[in-house]
């Protein structure tokens, strides 16, 4: 289903739904009125398009000239390719058979022109139009097969011209005057009289460079030097497209056939050869099992498997920005050496719950998060959170009066503390929607013992309202 003019409408149906009389474009409410048990999923045009593109990729094996005909058709120009597959009919059957085997519902046809093929695909599934027969085949098809805009199609039907043949019999000037030359062109194409070349898809950019060595290389300097030169080539390609690499992979092909792959990731798109080389060096140095060249490598391939848009990296006069960049580079290097999950950054979480207020994320990933610590803190106030928060609150024995008094004395880790100063309570209720059963509310107190140590304690649960016997926990220490 999809949202169209503020109403949820059906946008695609499976066979069962079609057989039950649902139709595309029908409002969801209406469809539900018919079938209360109807299961619907939100349409995902992006994913559909991606799938179509993937099928197009797959079709590359038959011909390099594949064009998308969205939302759900592909045009393949197989000129000169059919003999490789045993003829036209065999090729068509093979493509459709393979797609069906993958679970797709496919219809297809092959003809001298794209429009004729398209018309036939809908109405004469699996049909191969012999050259010159387009006219004869297309004529009896309904004009809908031309895929004109709905208004034009309607106009033809109203005029009593309901097949392609009937339209084709009209004077071309008559048609042009009413529907424009584009329509006439489409018609002619369908009749096989003219053809517009399909515009094949532009292949995805492929950042891959490799270097062959007639003599296998084995020394570290040579390997490094060739990595630099490969990186330079790769970076040129990246620059041309205004992109930078987020993930790079180097593959080392050993003369004896073994292949070793090493990947590095960066926190922001990069296209500086030096940085790339340095990252690989960090990684290579950190390898537990050093790269063993054996008899030497005869091929090194460097590829960027993930690339993103990247603004041109002009030197910046802004010191802060430069410093920022330095830090990012440092993070990348450390991550390359120790692994991304070992280099962490704290990010604030917008919540009242103390232990959830900060989260440690891999530093390379953390930069994008929205919230900043600045918005979390408030000025002009005594510190409300301890400097050190225990990973897990520890239960303490206390002497405290119910219902809401602070403790007078407590024992933590077998040490007795006499409370001399206290402030509170700060009452924090748990996030009720996250828990299956109600969680006790905490009353936090900031206390100072007779030795001047300051602690953050809480009573777990409101007396009588939530519990008859509230327990106490120590959650952190103030400086």
């Amino acid at each position, binding site marked *: 289903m999809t949202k169209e003019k503020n109403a949820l409408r059906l946008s695609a149906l499976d066979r069962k739904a079609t057989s039950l009389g649902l139709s595309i474009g029908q409002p969801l409410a209406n469809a539900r009125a*018919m*079938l209360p048990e109807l299961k619907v999923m939100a349409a995902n045009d992006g994913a559909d398009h991606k799938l179509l593109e993937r099928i197009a990729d797959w079709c590359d094996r038959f011909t390099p000239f594949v064009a998308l005909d969205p939302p759900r058709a592909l045009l393949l120009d197989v000129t000169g390719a059919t003999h490789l597959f045993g003829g036209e009919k065999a090729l068509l059957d093979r493509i459709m058979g393979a797609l069906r085997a993958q679970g797709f519902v496919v219809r297809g046809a092959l003809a001298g022109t794209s429009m004729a093929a398209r018309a036939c695909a809908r109405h004469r599934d699996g049909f191969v139009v012999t050259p010159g027969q387009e006219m004869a085949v297309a004529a009896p098809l309904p004009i809908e097969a031309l895929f004109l805009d709905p208004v034009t199609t309607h106009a033809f039907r109203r005029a009593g011209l309901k097949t392609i043949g009937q339209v084709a019999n009209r004077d071309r000037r008559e048609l042009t005057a009413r529907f424009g030359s584009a329509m006439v062109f489409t018609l002619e194409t369908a009749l096989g009289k003219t053809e517009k070349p399909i515009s094949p898809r532009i292949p995805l950019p492929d950042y891959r460079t490799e270097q062959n060595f007639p003599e296998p290389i084995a020394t570290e300097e040579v390997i490094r030097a060739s990595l630099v030169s490969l990186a330079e080539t790769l970076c040129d390609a990246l620059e041309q497209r205004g992109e930078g690499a987020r993930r790079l992979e180097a593959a080392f092909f050993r003369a004896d056939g073994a292949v070793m792959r090493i990947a590095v990731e960066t926190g922001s798109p990069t296209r500086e050869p030096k940085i790339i080389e340095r990252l690989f060096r960090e990684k290579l140095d950190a390898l537990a099992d050093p790269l063993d060249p054996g008899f030497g490598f005869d091929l090194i391939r460097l590829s960027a498997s993930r690339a993103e848009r990247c603004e041109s990296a002009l030197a910046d006069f802004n010191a802060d920005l430069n410093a920022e960049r330095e830090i990012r580079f440092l993070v990348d290097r450390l991550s390359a050496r120790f692994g991304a999950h070992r280099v962490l950054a704290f990010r604030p979480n917008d919540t009242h719950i103390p232990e959830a207020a900060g989260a440690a994320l891999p530093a390379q990933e953390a930069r994008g998060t929205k919230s900043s610590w600045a918005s979390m803190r408030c000025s002009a106030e005594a510190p409300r959170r301890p400097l050190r928060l225990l990973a897990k609150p520890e239960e303490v024995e206390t002497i405290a009066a119910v219902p809401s008094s602070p403790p007078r004395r407590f024992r933590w880790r077998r040490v007795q503390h006499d409370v001399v100063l206290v402030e509170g309570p700060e009452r924090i209720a748990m996030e009720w929607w996250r828990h299956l059963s109600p969680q006790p509310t905490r009353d936090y107190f900031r206390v100072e013992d007779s030795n001047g140590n300051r602690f953050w304690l809480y009573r777990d649960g409101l007396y009588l309202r939530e519990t008859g016997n509230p327990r106490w926990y120590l959650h952190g220490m103030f400086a």
Partner: protein
Amino acid sequence: MTAYAEIGVTTNFSFLRGASHPREFAHAAALLGYAAIGIADRNTLAGVVRMYSAFEELKEKGEPVTKQLVGCRLVFVDGTPDILAYPTDRKAYGRLCRLLSAGKLRAPKGECLLTLDDLLKWQDGLLLVVMPPHPSRTVIDTAPPKRFWNKDLALKDEGVGGVSLEKYKTNTQCSFEEVQVLVGKLAAIAPGRIWLGVSMPHRGDDQRRLLKWKQIARRAGVPLIATNDALYHIAERRELQDVVTCIRKGVTLNEAGRLLEANGERHLKTPVEMTALFAAAPEAMAETIRFANRIAFTLEDLKYNYPHEPVPPGKTAQQHLEDLSWEGALRRYHGVVSDEVRKILKKELELIRKLEIAEYFLTVHDIVSFAREGIKKEGVPPILCQGRGSAANSAVCYMLGITSIDPVQMDLLFERFVSEERKEPPDIDVDFEHERREEVIQYVYRRYGHHRAALAATVIHYRPRSAIRETCKVFGLTEDIAADLASGVWGSWGSNLSEAQVRQGQHNPFNVLIARAVKVANELIGFPRHLSQHVGGFVLTDDRLDEFVPVSPATMEDRHFIEWDKDDIDAVRMMKVDVLALGMLTCIRKAFDLVQTHENKTLALNMQAVDPAVYEMLQKADAIGVFQVESRAQMSMLPRMKPKNLYDLVIEVAIVRPGPIQGGMVHPYMRRRAGEEPVDYPSPKDGDPNELHGVLNKTLGIPLFQEQAMKLAMVAAKFSPSEANGLRRAMATFRNLGTINTFRDKFVGRMVERGYEQDFAERCFKQIEGFGSYGFPESHAASFALLVYVSAYIKKYHPAAFACALLNSQPMGFYAPAEIVRDAREHAVEVLPVDVNDSEWDNTLEHSPHGLALRLGFRQIDGFSEKWCKILVGARGNRFSGIESLARKARLPKRAMIILAEADCFQSLNKDRREILWEVRRLADTETLPLFAAQYVEEQPEEEIAALPTMPLSEHVLADYQMQRFSLRAHLMAFLRDLFRKEGIDDCRYISSPADHPFPVSRDGEKVRCAGIVLTRQMPGDAGVVFITLSDETGIANVVVWPKLVKEFRREIMSGRLLVVEGMVQRSKEDVIHLVAERIIDRTAELERLSEDDIEVPSFRSQAAKHLNRHPRNVRVVPKSRDFH
């Protein structure tokens, strides 16, 4: 005993901030034994009357109440912290209203922009409590408004009171020093009226801050006052509070973070708890009592302030009203006023004098007279109008011409309209022609001024659907689940949900989540969402209205509406007149005009409803288009009721309603009417056995009207007047939906105790509940009955004018144009097609050889605009001689020409639809601009056109349906008749013709199969029965589908356009004919044959491909049926 008054209460009228109703706060305050409670909603007084009403109810029940303080929380745009403002007296209250109105009038709808300067201007007599914000609230709470109401402001973008819009924010952080300066400044200006408000939100540093504020208050010389700054009445509402915050912010609970409160402490607390919290500042607690004691103002002070305009100088209002009433009586009774009338009129006038409400009647009279007479001075024809509702009980209203029903003749009681016990002002609703109500509204503004007249508000509440939808969003549930829940698939409102939960496993967190969402949504239902303007409810005052209640700008320029809805207005006894719109009055007016023009007869609304021919027509259920009695249920009731006089129509109108139906009163009444059952009156064990005779004698001992149900409560269940009042209110209003159940036990219990049958008592109460969803008092039915008669009269004697007027008043009523046209043709009215030479925008009447004929107008054509019509008619002159002259003179855009051609409007030019369509498609594809008019290609090169295939009749008909939703040529079913005949399907005439018809007709109990196009689907109430009206070329068939079958054939019923129904014919002894469905087959696909007959699509034809590539117009082969649920 500690005493405490809470002054800082935010209710749900601070839209999506508070989480409790004012009523809940009122009850909680009474329960906690507060000395006083003050609502202080955000820049609004919208909730104060609700609390007032709640206390009034408690008072009536004799329960303890709390003093209500009326006030408001002022939120500023210039960085000033919030200030609670409470007026001490009526004058100060007026100033507070002015202040709020000023803020609202300059702001976009629903907002209020105030600065400290505004407050200083109006502060006199206001008690002000400065509420410093807590510094930890760092989140900016309000975004600047996108659009300013006041155009000057928007243009200059200078903001309000010198505050630039960039700074627009509510103050969320404010230093101690700033507060100290502000408090000092205010204390100098308003000495003795300034407080510093403190609350204890449990934020850790409460005590420290309390001491700090204490210090500051002492330095500034103002007292400290305690409050809990409550957002909800009980702690359990925290969840709902979190949810409404999320709704307001458009975030999910998971994203909300610290937008939500850290804890659930903002509920009303006991005085003991409050004392404990403020142990360090007991003086702040004591101050709450001192504060409350200084306020003398109550909402009582507002009542009865009626405009004095309608009274001529030198007369009192009462005198003037008496004079007008007697004058009117002489006119109504042609100079002879009977003693009975005299007595009743005197009694009414006496009561009016006692209650001092004469001006109210005069004001309504003034408005009605304008519509009838005054407007003529402006050279416009008068506007039809008629009072509805309980006003019809009043002889004074009848004499003044406000209502058209003689209450003396109808035996209606004035006490139902105005009574001494009920403390509410009378409520007069007047219907006007719906197309001309605007003129009346304009008059009201002219006469009473914008400063004294405004529209009432309508409080838009959360309904189950909107509540569950919004709640699901907040819980992060998908739109699909929300839709499921909203459509009741997962059980209706919790009751079925737990069962489903058990089935699917208690520990599935997903289910717990859904259960929670449903629980919260249930609480959210009935919450006010925003205020909107009432369509026609006017509030009028003699003094400035904006000193009674804050006024906001309405969507339309120069329109204002107040903050209270009609119940609130009643509660504070302000004057309200409902200027309502009634489509049927428009239709009757149009019909009257047509009859005048074409038949030279003058008709008027106040006709004597005595023509037997009219009643005969109604008895035959020949009622399509007739006001109120045209629904399927009414049409099947008519032959049973056999109405013979106006009072029968009153009953007819009232009986097919939820009240009598749910109470099971319909069948007993019908049996008694038919003489199959003796008329007797239920009686108690002891006491007067005839006590109900007076109540029920007009309706043969069966209660049918709302008043009778009320009367039963008083006579049979011995309700006290105040109890009855409570019941009446519970019946009337949405917000008291819950309370009606408390009356059930009382009502049924007492009746049974007094010896009435349990069953009767329960049915009576069910009926009362039914009235709750759609009340229909006798007086209202009487006013409507007259319109039933008038419309039936026109239909009987002027069918062409009737059909024409009906079509020109669309959309209204139950039937689509197709049905109205069919009905007119069956009544021997010739109907002529739309034509470029003969049609106007509206449908018109023409003299034809066969009498008056109905000429269809351009308004019947889908997609044709009135603008094009004006151009076309303006260019027409005498007539267009041909297509060329039309194109040259009118120069319509190509699109307009195509639509005209598609709709076959060139018949008088002898042009074939298909050819002309092909021809106009050549036209230049632009609207000709004046500048390029000269380039307009008039002469296109001659073109040799090969003939197009001729258009078969079926396609013509189909095109007609697509363009105007019906065809004068033939019925679509005619083309399928051969097909269906082969299948042994009967036509509608065979099934539905009366038994005495000359040709063969179906018998009762006969099994038949019938095919037809679905005209209407009606699913009355929640009984689960579906009524379908099928139509074919021979007539219509009325199909009944019982609930069990509805389940089985749901798909066919809901989506089929052409159905085949197998079933049994049911003929009642009055010859009401139904086809009771047993099997339903969807044959909509047959319709597609009609256009595609002449084309053989080779091989595979896919459903999906067809739908993908069709013109939207094509998809809808047949107009959608009109469905009512």
